[in-house]
C-alpha cells in the first residue's frame, strides 16, 4: 500500500512554478428585455447550468422611503405579503412553495424591495403564480400583523446581543444622522407605530407593475418566460407611485468617535469610514479597485497588516457600499480588547499611506486581474448572474454594463486609482464607531479625540466607569 521514502527524497520531486495562461473571454449569456403593457419590465436570460431557475421581483421602493417614525415599514410589507393572500392563507402559501421544490424570500434594502425565488425550471409557471399572488393580492390580516409585530420585536432583542448587528446600526447612525440611510430596519418604537393601515397603504402605493421589474435566469427560454410572466402579472394594474425624496447627505466635520457600551465584550468591534459615491457613478469601478487593494481582497494591505502580520483579528472587512442616493466606505475589524487602540492606528496608517502613495504598479496589475476574475466567478451561476442583473436594473446602470465591465477595469490607471482611494478612504473627515467594554479599553483611546457614548440602543449615556 503505502511506501515510505527516505527523508531526503521527500522534497526531491518538487516541480517548478508554472505560468498562468491567457485569460479566457467571458460574457454572460444574452438577455432579452420586454416591457408589459402595464409597465412591468421583464428580463430573461437562458443559462441552463442546471435544470433550475431564479426569479426575482424587485419593487423600486425601500427603507429610505419609510416615514421616520415607521422605520422598517418596507421590510414589514415584504414580510406581511408572504403571510396570506386572497386565495392562500399563510400556511398554504408556504406549503405550495415547498411542494414544488422552491424557496421564496424577501428583503427590503434602502432603495428597493426584492423577492427572490429559486426552483425547478419546469415549475416556472407555478413559481410565477405564487410570486404574483404575493405581490398583488396580500390580505394583511390583523392576526398575521400582530404576530409579525410580536416576533419582530423579539427578533430585534435577540439581534441586539450580536456585536456585529449593533456595530452596523451604530455606524450607519453615526455616519448618516437624520438621513434615511441611517436606518437599517425597524426599532421597537417604530414597530409599535406600524399598523395595518400603514402597511396596506404602502403596498397600494408602491407595489405597482410600473414601479417594478422581474428577472428570470435559468434553464428557460425567453419566449416561454415572457408568456408566463404575462399570464401571472399581465392584469396587474398600474398606479401613480409617489416620487421619492432625495435628502442631502450630511457633511462630515473632522473625526467623529462613538463608543457603544457592551458589557462583557471580549473583543472590540471597530468600524472606520466615511461617505463615498452613488452606485451609478461612473467612477464606481475605480473605487471598487481601490477597495480591493486596500482591504477587500484576502491579500490586501489592511488584511496583511492587522491579520497576517499583527494577528489582531480574524475578520477584517473593507466594505464599499454604494446605493441610489449615496455611498459609504466602512473598514471593520473585531479585535481582542487589548489591541483596540493599536488597530485604529493601523487602519488610519494604511489609509494615509494609500491616499498619499497610490498603488504600486504590480498591485495595480494584479488587482485588475482579480476584479476581472471575480466578475466571471460572480456570474458563473444562475443566482450570481441574477444578482448582477438585479443591481444593474435597480440602479439604472448602462445597458452594456455586463459586456463592458472587464474592459473598463482593464483601462483603469494608477493615477485614477490614487484619486479613487482619496475619494473612498476618508482620513481627517471620518467616523469611528467602537462596540465594546469601555472599562477594558479606555486607556487605549486617549488621544483619539472627543468620544460620544451610547448604549446598544443608540441612546446617549455618560462615560461608563
Amino acid at each position, binding site marked *: 500500500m*503505502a511506501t*515510505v521514502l527516505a527523508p531526503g527524497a521527500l522534497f526531491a*520531486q*518538487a*516541480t517548478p512554478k*508554472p*505560468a*498562468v*495562461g*491567457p*485569460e*479566457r473571454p467571458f460574457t454572460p449569456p444574452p438577455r432579452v428585455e420586454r416591457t408589459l403593457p402595464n409597465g412591468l419590465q421583464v428580463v430573461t436570460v437562458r443559462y441552463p*447550468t*442546471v435544470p*433550475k431557475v431564479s426569479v426575482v421581483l424587485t419593487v423600486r421602493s425601500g427603507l429610505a422611503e419609510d416615514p421616520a417614525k415607521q422605520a422598517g415599514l418596507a421590510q414589514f410589507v415584504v414580510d406581511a405579503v408572504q403571510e396570506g393572500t386572497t386565495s392562500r392563507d399563510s*400556511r398554504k402559501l*408556504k406549503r*405550495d412553495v*415547498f*411542494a*414544488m*421544490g422552491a*424557496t421564496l424570500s424577501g428583503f427590503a434594502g434602502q432603495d428597493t424591495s426584492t423577492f427572490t425565488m*429559486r*426552483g*425547478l425550471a*419546469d415549475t416556472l409557471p407555478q413559481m410565477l403564480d405564487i410570486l404574483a399572488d404575493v405581490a398583488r393580492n396580500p390580505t394583511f390580516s390583523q392576526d398575521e400583523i*400582530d*404576530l409579525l409585530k*410580536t*416576533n419582530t420585536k423579539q427578533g430585534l*432583542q*435577540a439581534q*441586539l*446581543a*450580536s*456585536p456585529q448587528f449593533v456595530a452596523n446600526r451604530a455606524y450607519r447612525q453615526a455616519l448618516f444622522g437624520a438621513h434615511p440611510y441611517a436606518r437599517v430596519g425597524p426599532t421597537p418604537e417604530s414597530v409599535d407605530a406600524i399598523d395595518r393601515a400603514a402597511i396596506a397603504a404602502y403596498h397600494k402605493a408602491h407595489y405597482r407593475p410600473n414601479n417594478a421589474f422581474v428577472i428570470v435566469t435559468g434553464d428557460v427560454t425567453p419566449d416561454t418566460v415572457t408568456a408566463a410572466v404575462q399570464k401571472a402579472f399581465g392584469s396587474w394594474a398600474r398606479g401613480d407611485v409617489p416620487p421619492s425624496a432625495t435628502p442631502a447627505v450630511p457633511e462630515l466635520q473632522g473625526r467623529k468617535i462613538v463608543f457603544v457600551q457592551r458589557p*462583557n*465584550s*471580549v*473583543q472590540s468591534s471597530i468600524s472606520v469610514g466615511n461617505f463615498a459615491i452613488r452606485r451609478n457613478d461612473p467612477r464606481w469601478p475605480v473605487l471598487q479597485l481601490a477597495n480591493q487593494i486596500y482591504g477587500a*481582497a484576502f*491579500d490586501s494591505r489592511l488584511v496583511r497588516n492587522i491579520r*497576517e502580520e499583527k*494577528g*489582531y*483579528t*480574524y*475578520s477584517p472587512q473593507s466594505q464599499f457600499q454604494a446605493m441610489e442616493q449615496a455611498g459609504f466606505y466602512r473598514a471593520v475589524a*473585531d479585535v*481582542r480588547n487589548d489591541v483596540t487602540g493599536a488597530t485604529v492606528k493601523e487602519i488610519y496608517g494604511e489609509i494615509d499611506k494609500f491616499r498619499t502613495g497610490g498603488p504600486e504598479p504590480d498591485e495595480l496589475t494584479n488587482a485588475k486581474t*482579480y476584479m*476581472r*476574475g*471575480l466578475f*466571471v*466567478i460572480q456570474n*458563473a*451561476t*444562475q443566482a450570481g448572474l441574477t444578482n448582477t442583473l438585479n443591481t444593474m436594473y435597480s440602479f439604472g446602470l448602462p445597458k452594456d454594463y455586463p459586456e463592458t465591465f472587464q474592459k473598463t477595469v482593464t483601462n483603469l490607471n494608477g493615477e485614477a486609482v490614487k484619486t479613487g482611494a482619496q475619494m473612498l478612504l476618508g482620513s481627517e473627515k471620518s467616523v469611528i464607531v467602537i462596540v465594546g467594554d469601555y472599562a477594558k479599553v479606555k486607556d487605549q483611546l486617549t488621544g483619539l479625540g472627543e468620544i460620544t457614548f451610547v448604549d446598544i440602543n443608540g441612546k446617549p449615556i455618560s462615560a461608563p466607569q
Partner: protein
Amino acid sequence: MAQLTTRGLIAAVSLATAALLLAAPAALAQARFTVPVEYFTLPNGLKVVVSEDRSAPVALVEVMYNIGFRIEPKGRTGFAHLFEHMMFQGSSQVKKMEHVALMQQAGGVVNGSTRLDYTNYFQVLPSNALEMALWLEADRMRSLDVSAENLKNQQNVVSEEVRVNVLNQPHAAFEWLDIWQKANTSWNNAHNFYGDLAELEAATLDDVRGFFKTYYAPNNAVLVVVGDTTAAEVRKLAEKHFGGIPSQKLPPPPDVSEPPQKEEKKNSREDKLARTPALAVAWHLPERMTRDFFALSVLDPLLVSDESARVYQKLVRDDRLAISVIGAFNFLGTNWDVKGPMLYTMRVDYMNDKTADQVLASIETVLSEVREKGISESELAQAKTSLRSSFLEDLEGGGMPRFGRANLLAAFALFDDDPKRINTILDELDKVTVEDVKAAAGRWFVPTNRTSIDSRPVAKPTAAPQGGVR
C-alpha cells in the same frame, strides 16, 4: 431507476397531470440530471476526481484530507483547525500567504475549512490558471514549511476567530459546539472542536510538523477539479505535480463510535451576552448510508427546512413559543460529508416569557405524531422534490461556484471510494417509503435519544413582549 410501489407510481402520474400543482410529481417522473465524473488514483494513492463543466470559464480545485477535528490529539483541542491555518503559511517554494496571493493575482478566490472528518482546501479561479492551482496544492501537500513566528501569528488569528464566532457571541455557538459535548461521551465526539484558548496557545511547531507528516499524505487525500477543463488535462497535470509526492504509512483509524444513549440529557447554561433565550436539541443519528439514515434524510425537510415545515409551524405559528427554528443533519455541511457519528440538531430562539420545557414538549408532539401516524404519500413526494432541488443547487454552486459538487465528489471518493454516487444518491433517497420514515422516527427521534441545552440570559430582559394570544 428508483423502485416505487405501484401506488406511488400512480400517484406520481396523476400528480404530473394536475394543471396547477399543489404537490410536485415524484422525483421518479423527472429525467435525472447527472454530472460527468471521471475517477482515477495515482500510484502514490492520491484519488483524483474530475467533473467537466463548460458553462463558464471557471474551475474549482479542491483537496480534501481524511483528517478532521474529531480525531485531533487529546490535550490539543482545536488543533486540526489551527493546522488548517498553517497550511497557508508556507511550503518549500511558496512563502507565507503567497498561495492566496498567486491565486488572487490569477483572478481566483481561496478558502479552506476544518470539519468533523476532513479538512478541505479549495479555490475557484478562471480556468486558465488551473495548473497554478494544482502546483500550489501539490507544493503544500509535499512540503509544508512553517516557522515559529508564523505559528504564533496564526495562534493569534485563530484565537480571534474563536472570540468573534463564539466567545463574543450570545449563546456561544452552542448549537454545534456545546451540544456535541453534552450529547456524546467519547472524547473524539465530545470535546471543544474550536479549541480552548489555552490549548491553542500550547501548540508547538513539532506538533504541526508531526501532524503534517502523519495525515497530510497523498494516500490520505482526494483531489477534485470541477469546471472548464478535461479529465485528460487534469490527469496530465496531477501526475506531473502530485505524482512525485511519496505516500506515507497511515495510523490505524481510531474507534470513534458512540455508545447508544439510554436516557434523556437536559442541560442549561447562563449567558452573559445573550438578551433572549435559545434552546439547542439533538438526537443521535443512525450510521451513514443505512436505511434509517436515508429515511431520516427524507423526513428532515418536512421537519425544519422552511416555514412550511412541521416544527416551525408548531412552535412559531400554532403554539407561539418561538420566533425561529433552524435544524440540520449537519450545520457545517451536508448529509453526506460526515463519516462518523452524527447528531440531528435544532436551534430554537424562543420567547422571553416561555420555557425550554414548553418548547421541548411541542417538538416532542410533532415527533410523536410522526412516530405514531407517519407522513402522507404526498408529503413524502414533496420531501424528495425538495431534496432534489437542494441537491441541484449544490451541483451548480454551494457558496462558491461549483464548490458544492466538488465537495460532494470529494466526500463520496474519500469515504465511499465511489464519487459517481453523486449521480445515484437521489435514487437511493427515492427508495424511502412512508413506512421507512415512520419506523426510523420511532427508533431515533425519541426522548431517550435526546440531549438539550437551554441557554438563558443572565439578566432579565427589560421589556418582555408576550407570546401571541391564540
